[in-house]
């Protein structure tokens, strides 16, 4: 067992123990914190999976040499599926739509109209379908990618084309399931509120965090003596930085379009969500996320030179990850504490648990897998890649 596997496993077990205590003592807080921690992690895993498939579909050669990093991150998918269990078991304690009787009178009639979609058996069934799709797609991508290591010539070319077709289909499937998963697991925390762009918002945040994590791992793995030393160069960080910049802007664009439509419509039912999240300490948090997930990365990623510095990209990756945690926290926790931030030790415990188990499992699964896809016909061009 490597150090990363052991340490993150220990973190996971400590988190699990604290979570169990939390469920006994204050179940609603514990489970809502769990939704926050779970959403933080599964969006990063899916972001990595999306980036894997997107690079295949677009034929991004620069990414070939970094592809195994994304594959390593999405390797957490099976454990992410298992970690969804508390959501299904605790559904009645987490989501107010599961017990409409407790809701205020006006909200009750609104929620009753959504019963065909928002009911516990269907919720669990849908969740199982989403998770099965993710685990399956990740398994095929991983299997084919590792098979490719032993292929040469036309066989490798055919395998690459096959992977591209699978990725095109997989992007559609993951895109749709991720959208509905974010509706089910996150948006339904406020069952009277809805926004159609919500799924894209959750994707954009998760994808950005995944790109941040790829930069962090890429920096660590390309230091002198590390497996990707000499393979991943400033040229690759430059290209990754451009993609990050795109998605920093994309995230801001999506976040703002959701806000603008609701702000300008000014309908009480819609704007209540932003009133809660925009006032008091939640408003301060929103401002921090806007600065940390948009303004700072935007300015840092704008010049060419900054993107080409691995150490800086590492720091920025950490910032993006921290901001993703805060972003999801801002999405989830106001449902439980509408008056302002009420920090709980369970927020940290659940994040330790989900993050710890996911990291430990993903790094255990990456063992024995080559650091680069040696059979990929685009590997040589990828290693030679230089930014235009």
């Amino acid at each position, binding site marked *: 067992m490597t150090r990363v596997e052991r340490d993150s496993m220990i973190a996971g077990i400590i988190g699990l123990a604290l979570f169990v205590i939390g469920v006994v003592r204050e179940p609603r807080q514990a489970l809502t914190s769990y939704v926050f921690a779970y959403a933080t992690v599964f969006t990063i895993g899916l972001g990595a999976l999306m980036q894997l498939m997107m690079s295949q579909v677009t034929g991004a050669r620069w990414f070939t040499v970094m592809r195994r990093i994304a594959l390593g991150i999405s390797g957490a998918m099976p454990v992410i599926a298992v970690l969804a269990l508390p959501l299904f078991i605790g559904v009645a304690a987490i989501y107010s739509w599961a017990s409409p009787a407790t809701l205020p009178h006006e909200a009750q009639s609104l929620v009753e109209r959504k019963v065909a979609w928002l009911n516990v058996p269907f919720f669990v069934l849908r969740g199982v379908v989403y998770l099965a799709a993710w685990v399956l797609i990740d398994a095929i991508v991983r299997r084919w990618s590792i098979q490719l290591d032993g292929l040469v010539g*036309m066989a*490798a*070319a*055919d395998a*690459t*084309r096959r992977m591209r077709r699978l990725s095109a289909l997989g992007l559609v499937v993951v895109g749709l399931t991720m959208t509905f998963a974010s509706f089910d697991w996150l948006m339904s925390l406020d069952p009277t509120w809805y926004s159609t762009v919500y799924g894209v918002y959750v994707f954009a945040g998760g994808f950005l965090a995944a790109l941040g994590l790829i930069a962090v791992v890429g920096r660590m793995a390309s230091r002198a003596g590390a497996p990707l030393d000499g393979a991943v160069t400033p040229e690759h960080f430059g290209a990754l930085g451009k993609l990050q910049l795109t998605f920093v802007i994309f995230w801001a664009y999506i976040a*703002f379009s959701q*806000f*603008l439509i609701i*702000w*300008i419509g*000014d309908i009480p039912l819609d704007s209540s969500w932003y009133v809660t999240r925009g006032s008091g300490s939640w408003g301060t948090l929103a401002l921090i996320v806007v600065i940390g997930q948009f303004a700072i990365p935007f300015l840092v990623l*704008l*010049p*060419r030179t900054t993107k080409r510095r691995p150490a800086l990209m590492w720091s920025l990756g950490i910032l993006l990850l921290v901001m993703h945690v805060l972003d999801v926290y801002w999405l989830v926790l106001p449902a439980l504490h509408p008056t302002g931030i009420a920090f709980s030790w369970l927020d940290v415990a659940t994040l330790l648990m989900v993050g710890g188990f996911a990291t430990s499992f993903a790094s255990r699964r990456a063992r024995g897998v080559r650091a680069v896809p040696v059979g990929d*016909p*685009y590997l040589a*061009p990828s290693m030679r890649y230089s930014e235009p």
Partner: protein
Amino acid sequence: MRAGMREIRLLAEFDSATKLVAAVERLRQEKYHDLETYAPFDIPELDAALGYRRPRLGWFVLAAGIAGLAAAYGIQWWANVHSYPLNVGGRPVHAVPAFIPATFEGTVLAASLASFLGVLLVLRLPRLWSIEDEVPGFDRASIDRFWLAMHTFASEHDRAHAEQVLRKSGALRTITRMGSEWQSVGRALVIVIALVVGVSACSDRIGQGFDWKRMRRQPRYQPYGSSRFFGDSMAMRTPPAGTIPREAAPTTFDTTAADATTLLRGGDRFHVFCAVCHGVAGNGSSVVGDNMRPTPPPALTSAPIVRLGATQLYAVITDGFGRMPAYAAQLTPADRWAVVAYVRMLQRGAPSR
């Protein structure tokens, strides 16, 4: 020398990129700096040899973006807060979220216009004419030759020395031309004046009293109409018997009976145009070919290609196939047949697999 003065320009033609790069390096060592190169493809080594630095266009674009941002926000603020404040459903007149989309668009518009115009400005485009255009054979810079152009010489001795350096570096020929940038400006002016005159002719007054419809009414035959002029009373003529479409003209060539001159010509053209991808031996092994995976150019000596008829090979050269472009522009019909004959020879000589 600045625009307007007569300008001496020295041009040199090379048959390989390596020689061009070497010539550039030597000239720069000898302190000649005003160099321009023309090549049919991107040569990364040239940027270093010419000492190109990354352009500072980014700063210009950033400044324009910020200006666009300020202008777009400013005009909205001025209109909504200062000039004509309206109460829209109780929202504040200074409605920041509502101002952002137009501000965003203004930033993007100004920045992209600045980068577009900036590129034109830095490259001094559009250039309607340059001396190079009048050198016969210069157009091969976009096919298979490499050209170097230089100007601003301190003296005739200076120019002669540069010419000597170019010849030593393997230039096929050197050409000295005189020209003036005013010629370019003059031509631009002629075009602008012609346009202005043309546009001014579109005045309403000129057309008054003139029967424009006369042009539509003039006697003429419709394609499928009848005619009393011809015996078969049809307006449209049938081509003489035995006429075939130009594209279907029979093109045959006995590749087995090609003489040595044809084969040498075919080999020469093959090495210029085909070997780059298909390999010198026609076996599909080349640097370019390796980079074209997963669909590399096929080995011309492989069984499926050997089975193709000579006319099919000719057709592929003429029109291209898959990722291979058409070579009709670079190879005359005779040259194409010569290449086919050469390929046939390679196929006969190839070791059996």
